[in-house]
């Protein structure tokens, strides 16, 4: 590293526009208007006339912003800031600031202190053995400035995005009929089962209604059979069975027929032994289709 020809100390007028560092202010916009006079430029150092202090504080988003401006636009050498002078001036402001936005001004004071500290550390000769161990005291500040600059730019970029209200708007059409469609509520099976459990508990309290185990498919089939017999006419016993359902299906249907007969919901007729068996619902609604 040490053999590399490095530029020696140079004043960091880094952001010098190609046109030359001597005329960096030519394209400045007025920053603010103070007492009727446009403030076209920020002072070269951090000295801010008390009159303009409030305006300056409003024009910048804080000491980092101000410092960044001075470095980028005014070619301020951050190594060259007359810290002692600025500190004295800042102290003078305190009286003025007390009637203004002290909490904002305090941040500028902190920055002045940071600058002063940096300066003092740079001025102190360092023992050679610490070489390469101690970081340049400016590094942390420079890092902060760079980090802040990225987000300052990001904020500007976001501001240029086309956005609703300013650049865009919703396109909407009128809806003549706002009749609301009703969607039935969601039912959780568990809820229904819990409801049933409570009914059963309650029913038991009343002392009747034994609960026995039974295949529910028979219950379902009972309903199916009743539907089939809903026309009130006689149906052939065999017509109620579906061969495709297999043995189990036949059993379920048969059990359901026995249950229905027991409940006196259907009538089973056979005119003679081995004659066809007929079934008929015992009651059908007059309005049945």
């Amino acid at each position, binding site marked *: 590293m040490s053999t590399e020809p490095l530029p020696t100390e140079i004043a960091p007028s880094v952001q010098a526009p190609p046109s030359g560092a001597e005329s960096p202010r030519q394209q400045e916009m007025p920053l603010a208007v103070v007492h009727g006079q446009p403030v076209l430029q920020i002072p070269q150092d951090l000295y801010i006339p008390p009159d303009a202090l409030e305006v300056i504080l409003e024009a910048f988003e804080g000491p980092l912003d101000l410092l960044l401006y001075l470095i980028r636009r005014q070619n301020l050498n951050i190594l060259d800031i007359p810290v002692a002078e600025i500190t004295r001036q800042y102290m003078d402001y305190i009286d003025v600031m007390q009637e203004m936005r002290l909490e904002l001004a305090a941040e500028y004071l902190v920055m002045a202190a940071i600058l002063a500290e940096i300066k003092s550390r740079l001025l102190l000769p360092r023992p050679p053995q610490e070489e390469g161990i101690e970081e340049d005291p400016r590094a942390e500040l420079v890092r902060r400035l760079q980090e802040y600059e990225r987000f300052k730019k990001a904020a500007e970029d976001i501001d240029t995005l086309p956005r609703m209200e300013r650049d865009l*708007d*919703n*396109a*909407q*059409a*009128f*809806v*003549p*009929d*706002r*009749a*609301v*469609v*009703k*969607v*039935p*509520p*969601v*039912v*959780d*099976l*568990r*809820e*229904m*089962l*819990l*409801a*049933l*459990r*409570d*009914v*059963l*508990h*309650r*029913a038991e309290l*009343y002392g009747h*209604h034994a*609960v*026995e*185990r039974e295949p*529910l*498919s028979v*219950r*379902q089939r*009972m*309903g*199916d059979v*009743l*539907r089939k*017999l*809903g026309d009130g006419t006689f149906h052939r016993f065999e017509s109620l069975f579906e061969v495709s359902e297999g043995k189990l299906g036949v059993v379920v249907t048969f059990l359901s027929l026995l249950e229905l007969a027991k409940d*006196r*919901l259907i009538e089973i007729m056979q005119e003679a032994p081995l004659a066809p068996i007929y079934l008929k*619902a*015992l*009651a*059908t*609604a*007059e309005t*049945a289709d």
Partner: protein
Amino acid sequence: MEQEKLNNIVEAALFAAQQPLTLPMLAALFHEEDGVGHEDLARAVETLAQTCEGRGIELVEVASGFRYQVREAVHPWVARLWAERQTKYSRALLETLALIAYRQPITRGEIEQVRGVTVATSIIRTLEEREWIRVVGYRDVPGKPALFGTTRQFLDYFNLKSLDQLPTLAEIREIADPDPQLALAPEPEAAPNDATNPSDPPADAEGAAPADTPSTTEDAA
């Protein structure tokens, strides 16, 4: 200003405005130097109205001006944007439904006997409208009361192949309140039509509690 650009501005303005716009209101959007006359605007509105033909919206003139509106023909679909989820079913309805499922075919009177209270007609109607129950026959007693049973839609909704997949009554009696793990055969997929409602909160909304416990246990408590 070219007619096409003018048309575009009028179109956008009519879509952006919250209320109908009159020709004078439209005219106010333009500067003197745009050189836009009333005839230009009238022509724009007419052109725009024509381009709506055969589409889902139309440009109409009402008392207070011109506006774009949704065509009646597509309204039945569009209206579902504002579909309202009804409040939860009552305990009485759930009990009735459960009894019909487990005791079918069953009459209203029999349900009332078990529950110890009257079953409101509205409950039966709601269940019938939802097509979860139906009349499967009539009991041969005075009054010929209807016998209710559950439907295929009922099974579909609860993701059941058959009623046998429901727990037995004995198992149900053992359900403990705080126990969220009910030994159900197929987990009742939180309602099938759940995801389809645009008014549903976004899926990632915080606190989207799993459907299974909170409300239920509250009810049961």
